[in-house]
């Protein structure tokens, strides 16, 4: 040991840089395999040839930029950013749970409870009495609270009774789905329009919707009816991600949460309340997932399908790959969630414009996630390479 080697500084000495690089490699690997799949598909389909496969691949890569004209591109970009919001927040939800040693597979249920709380409040407080902005805030906070409580339940079972959180999360997911369907069934919140009976009224019906500051107009197509959903919610979500990053990495609270996640026994030994921390972690995770739902419905132009007792919202589950790809780094989650949406948009463009179907983009995403699983291995390989190089440098001297 002893002698300190002091070679040139290299960014791969930094763990954060290493993990970002590993994610990039995962993405590249995913694309590569995805491309091969496209070529294989082309081989077995008479309508498509190799060049179509190359073309299709670039359409996916281009995401919304494969939309054709400038208006369409802006329109798709706006929707992409808006639709990234719930994904970003459920990703954050799963990530913070991962960081504290928990697997939050309960995000779909927390998402549903959040949507329910928000919708009820947004429709029940008359905006003739209370200013819409205030109603918006109360509705958002109510949604977050509902999700937090819903997340705290598996946290309680895990922390106090030692029951595996995955099992409880799955149960609470279905309980949430049934509660939401039951609460809304025959309620006054259901859309009265003949064709929309499956949905809850848009919050804009009560004059409640997220501020857009003209973003919806900026991100819009030329024709009147194609105005995108873009509002400020993506920026709210990014700010939340930064706050979570700061909490996890700069505060004593985050220090405790992570310590409990890494080693429950040592945290107990150090005098931390490990049971409380587990419950808190799950409550925060639940609140984040719910916040994603709240911001989505508060957009004011979204139809929330209330009959969910048979299906859980996919954005809840998709938080898992988002967190995985970001290696559970809150800032990374911002990028990975937008990135996955970007690929999705590319995929639907591909389906709309060519003979490929949109499942190809899903497949590529799945492959990328699969590669992300190797992230640890890639990082270790980098460390090994680096150590070897340092040694050579030393010998050279």
């Amino acid at each position: 040991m002893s002698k300190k080697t002091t070679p040139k500084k290299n960014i791969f000495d930094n763990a954060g840089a290493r993990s970002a690089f590993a994610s990039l490699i995962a993405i590249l690997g995913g694309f590569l395999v995805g491309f091969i799949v496209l070529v294989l598909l082309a081989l077995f389909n008479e309508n498509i040839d190799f060049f179509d496969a190359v073309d299709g691949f670039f359409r996916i890569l281009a995401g919304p930029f494969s939309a054709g004209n400038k208006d369409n591109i802006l329109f798709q970009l706006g929707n992409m950013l808006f639709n990234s919001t719930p994904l970003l927040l459920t990703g954050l939800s799963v990530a913070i749970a991962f960081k504290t040693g928990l697997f939050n597979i309960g995000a779909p249920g927390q998402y549903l409870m959040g949507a329910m709380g928000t919708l009820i409040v947004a429709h029940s407080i008359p905006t003739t009495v209370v200013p819409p902005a205030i109603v918006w805030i109360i509705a958002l906070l109510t949604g977050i609270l509902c999700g937090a409580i819903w997340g705290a339940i598996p946290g309680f079972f895990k922390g106090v009774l030692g029951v595996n959180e995955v099992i409880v999360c799955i149960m609470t997911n279905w309980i949430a789905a049934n509660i939401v369907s039951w609460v809304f069934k025959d309620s006054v919140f259901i859309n009265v329009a003949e064709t929309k009976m499956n949905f809850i009224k848009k919050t804009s019906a009560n004059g409640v919707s997220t501020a857009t500051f003209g973003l919806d107009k900026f991100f819009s197509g030329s024709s009147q009816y194609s105005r995108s959903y873009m509002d400020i919610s993506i920026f709210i979500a990014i700010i939340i991600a930064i706050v979570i990053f700061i909490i996890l990495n700069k505060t004593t609270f985050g220090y405790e949460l992570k310590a409990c996640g890494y080693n429950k026994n040592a945290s107990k030994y150090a005098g931390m309340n490990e049971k409380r921390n587990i419950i808190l972690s799950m409550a925060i995770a639940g609140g984040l997932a719910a916040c994603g739902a709240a911001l989505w419905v508060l957009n004011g132009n979204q139809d929330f399908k209330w009959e969910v007792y048979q299906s859980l919202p996919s954005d809840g589950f998709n938080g898992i790959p988002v967190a995985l790809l970001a290696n559970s780094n809150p800032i990374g989650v911002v990028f990975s969630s937008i990135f996955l949406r970007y690929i999705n948009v590319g995929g639907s463009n591909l389906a709309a414009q060519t003979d490929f179907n949109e499942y190809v983009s899903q497949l590529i995403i799945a492959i990328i996630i699969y590669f992300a699983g190797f992230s640890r291995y890639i990082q270790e390989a980098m460390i090994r390479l680096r150590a070897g190089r340092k040694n050579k440098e030393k010998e050279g001297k």
Partner: protein
Amino acid sequence: MGDIKNSEYVIEMRNITKVFPGIIANDDITLKLKRGEIHALLGENGAGKSTLMSVLFGLYQPEKGEILKDGEVIKINNPNDANKYGIGMVHQHFKLVDVFSVLDNIILGVEPTRFGFLTKKEARKRVLELSKEYGLNVDPDAMVENITVGMQQRTEILKMLYRNNEILIFDEPTAVLTPQEIDELMEIMRGLAKEGKSILFITHKLNEIMAVADRCSVLRKGKYIGTVDIKDTTKEELSNMMVGRDVKFVVDKEDAKPEDVVLEVKKLCVKSHTHKKNVVNNVSFKVRRGEIVSIAGIDGNGQSELVHAITGLERIDSGTVELVGDDVTHKSIRYKNTHGMSHVPEDRHKHGLVLDYSLEQNIVLQRYFDKEFQSHGFIKFDAVRKYAEDLIEQYDVRSGQGPVTMARSMSGGNQQKAIIAREFDREHDLLIAVQPTRGLDVGAIEYIHKQIVKSRDNGVGVLLVSFELDEVMNLADRILVMYEGEIVGELDPKKTNAQEIGLYMAGAIKNNKAEGDKTNE
């Protein structure tokens, strides 16, 4: 493998260099193992012993150097290769599957099958034969989680023998054993060597080296210092080679001047999780400022549970604990930590460290919320760094990257030193130290022992739990012997000897006082 054993050495490791971020763990090390010898490997904490053995076992690839078996260069890419060449290893921290039986653990990876079905019958026969042949007493059907560390270790040894390994690596096998088990292990090792097995043996205990080893190689700070024949050397010479100076084995200390009581335990009982009896039964004692009270006893007689009950890691079923006159029986661990209690825990990986935290994060594990280290809930990273650097320097904690080194990557002994530094430096009136020198090198032990005596002289009350009689005799001002959850005797180290303590520890004698206490109930 060829039958021409043309070399005197079964294994030669030549010019091995292994680099980790910020540190050269092995710097051009050459080690030669003779056939049928017990070869000890000695060196300070972090000297690179475990790393060198991991290279031989195929866990790490060296940047430079070659390995020869029977005079021929071989390439060991992974533990399977090592196994192929007959190399087996018992790691510093065991690698057994807790929920498997002993037999299953032994055959794991080389399960005998017929038509794809397990045929454990023959395996069992073979294991029983081996265990008889080498005196390795195990119960093949017991679950690993329920057996003693000693038996876990014998399981690890059987694992190697079952695979017909002939080069056996033991990484600090005795650190977790009781003195009795150590004697047994020494006997086993001698037997193995007689059967022609070649053994590499890492230990910090010079007595063990003197007792069983034929030769000893010494490493210091990643470098090879030399190899000596044990019959031509002494403990003093070995320790000198290892740390580069003379080491004292006996602590200088004056008579204790006990003052007021800092810890008073009254009729403490802790129920067992597995059986009906109390694991800690009606234990009462006091620790005063300025004295070292040591609890002696064979591992598993309730010492761990007693300490856990006092510190708050385990529930107390009845009885009281007073810390500096304050009844803390039902107080939180945080309260005790901030009201005068320091605790060096028995299990450094389970309780002592958050292995995925850096060294500096571990240094402030109980103090991150102090005014000194946070303001308005934000951690003062500069203050933490500065404090960690101070402690690292003061306690000579060695690691690759200083304060930012991940605790997991540190050598076992340096992990222990980090805990010691943290607990000794916190403000405290009572120091509870369980096996504080487990896994430390002689130089570090000398230092820690001095620190413990210094704490005592500064008015701290020390409760020392140790399974090592030497340490107890060396440090204690009073000895309490624990047997089956009860304190069976109080002894004065100056007036007693190892034999007498041994009798108490074995439950052969019990003090009247202890008996009297019991009937009070």
